[in-house]
């Protein structure tokens, strides 16, 4: 049950304007948003958008301003009605909900965090957080209790009775987040929630969101125009352009296999060290030797591959260390076995480590880092130059 689909958009389109029929015809024939607008005066905010969101994942949607991100996310809680297409929540078509079902859906299943916080300035912090509970008539004592828990969770203890105007931007969005979580919804819709914050506060909030999400395992649909944010937070990233989805993928796949030039441009603007792990930039070791190999064999291997160090692995490919060509020559001359000269003092890292996290290691190390998997098997090596080149 953990990997099932919680929300699904199926061929969703949203057109603004009078002449929708003609506009749809044009769009069906492949016309783009600008052409359609010039010819019919209709804005195609969304066209034929389909995707699935898995329970418990953070689904990031990214795109430039005007690409339709807000339009689609607002369809999920019925603030917008699609012109055509369907949205399913747990396989129920939400367009079929009657009035009361819509209220219940919004009160229990799905809540929203807004770009400019959307807080009610005439209410205190606690009263804001308790708003969703209040409208569904949770008794006062209970909602105060629950709102207090939420206040604590977002780190605002002591601010419960303060007016909203006394908070900084970051604190306001913490209130927004707490308000959305107070209802204990299944899905959290976040429309550029951190865009209005300065970079440092933004990083704090991203961290906060990740840690809350790992605790509560909510499904999050997260909108941003910042590719770094999308890659950092998203388990899945969808990239939108002019009302259409261009690519849906994991951050790693998207950065290694961009669907087209547009996506590539977006990704080029990203700080890839935050996305790519070392396995994306490592190279196979040029020269591998086994402990029981003769020193002369090791020397020949190194000479053939034109390198001055060899990586030593056992039968199971587990990494033991390195030998330099000088040591191998000494071993041959003094007739000692190769293992005597294995240098185990080599820095290693796991293949899934983010590049940003090995930057300092790679800079310190005299040799390329050895990249290992879970069983300590040598998967490749990564040189300082390769790390720097990936930046």
């Amino acid at each position, binding site marked *: 049950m953990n990997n099932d689909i919680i929300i699904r958009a199926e061929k969703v389109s949203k057109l603004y304007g009078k002449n929708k029929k003609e506009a749809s015809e044009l769009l069906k024939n492949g016309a783009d948003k600008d052409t359609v607008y010039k010819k019919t005066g209709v804005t195609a905010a969304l066209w034929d958008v389909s995707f699935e969101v898995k329970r418990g994942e953070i689904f990031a949607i990214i795109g430039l301003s005007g690409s339709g991100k807000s339009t689609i996310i607002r369809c999920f*809680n019925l*603030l917008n009605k699609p012109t055509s297409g369907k949205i399913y929540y747990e396989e129920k078509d939400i367009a079929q909900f009657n009035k009361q079902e*819509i*209220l*219940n*859906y*919004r*009160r*229990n299943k799905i*809540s*929203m965090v*807004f*770009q*400019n*916080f*959307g*807080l*009610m*300035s*005439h209410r205190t912090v606690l009263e804001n957080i308790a*708003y*969703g509970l*209040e*409208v*569904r008539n949770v008794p006062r004592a209970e909602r105060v209790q629950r709102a207090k828990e939420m206040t604590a969770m977002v780190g605002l203890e002591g601010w419960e009775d303060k*007016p909203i*105007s006394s908070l900084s931007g970051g604190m306001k969005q913490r209130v927004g987040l707490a*308000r959305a979580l107070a*209802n204990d919804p299944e899905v959290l*819709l976040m429309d550029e929630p951190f865009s209005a914050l300065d970079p440092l506060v933004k990083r704090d909030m991203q961290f906060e969101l990740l840690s809350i999400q790992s605790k509560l395992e909510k499904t999050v649909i997260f909108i941003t125009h910042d590719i770094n944010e999308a890659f950092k937070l998203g388990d899945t990233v969808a990239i939108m352009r002019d009302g259409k989805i261009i690519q849906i993928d994991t951050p790693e796949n998207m950065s290694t296999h961009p669907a087209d030039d547009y996506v590539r441009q977006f990704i080029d603007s990203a700080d890839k060290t935050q996305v790519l792990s070392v396995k994306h930039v490592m190279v196979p070791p040029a020269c591998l030797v086994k402990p029981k190999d003769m020193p002369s064999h090791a020397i020949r291997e190194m000479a053939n591959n034109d390198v001055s160090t060899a990586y030593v692995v056992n039968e199971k490919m587990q990494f033991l260390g390195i030998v330099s060509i000088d040591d191998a020559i000494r071993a041959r001359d003094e007739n000692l076995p190769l293992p005597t000269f294995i240098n185990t003092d080599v820095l290693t890292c796991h293949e899934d480590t983010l590049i940003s996290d090995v930057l300092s290691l790679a800079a310190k190390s005299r040799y390329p880092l050895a990249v290992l998997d879970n069983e300590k098997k040598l998967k490749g090596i990564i040189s300082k130059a390769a790390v720097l080149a990936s930046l």
Partner: protein
Amino acid sequence: MKEYLLKFPEAWQFDVGSAIDDAVKAFSRNHREALTFIKRGIITAISGINDLLAFIPWWVFIIAVALIGWRVSGKKRVGLIYAAMLFFVGSSGLWDHMLETLSIVTASVILSVVLGFPLGIVIALNKRAGKIIRPILDLMQTMPTFVYLVPAVILFSTGKTPALMATTIYAIVPMIRLTSHGITHVDEEVVEAATAFGSTTIQALVKVQIPQALPTIMQGLNQTIMMAMSMVVTCSLIGANGLGMEILLATNRTEMGRALMPGICIVFVAIILDRLTQGLVDSQEAESK
């Protein structure tokens, strides 16, 4: 030259005015009892308010206004100035006239709020209602105020009742307008948040839109009070007693000095009412920042 080119042809003139006159008169004849009933109700209400005001000893009244003025402005000096103004009214022998004026103003402000506030909300929430009512409001506001006096007199003869009616028609407009303006201009994202968390229309209105619009609504109340104050003076023409009547009498007798005193009193009362309600607006604004 044909005459009809020089002068608007008489045959094409039709007399809407007297048709309306006849209609209003007929209405007043046919609904005599209902109108009398309304009239009695209104007179009871106004004299009730008057009795209430008169029940307060003059010095308590002055001290109370001074204290409120001090509270609202935060300055002792302001409270003292208000007290001095009211003292001036009393020493000019116009205290009772002031209370009479105030009771009509109060009654018409209450009526304006009771009718205007819900109407403003309806206009804000229902575009079609807005399209119909807005032009009527424009008309009500641009019409010379004297025009209201005549039908009021035909329906209720002279005295406080037609004065209240005319005053309310004139003063209700800002209440309606600013209520609706306040509600429609609440931050869209905040209203959206209310909706997104599953508020019903009524919940969103009561818990979010009205409280958020309160500073603007208070501004409307302030304007309504000021307009009622100015209209009540005009209403002395149809027999509303009070400060306005004193001016009217003095003017008829061309007694400059006797007209001046009530004139100054009206200005004082208006200033005090304006500042006190403006203070209310400011404190609302400060709260919702």
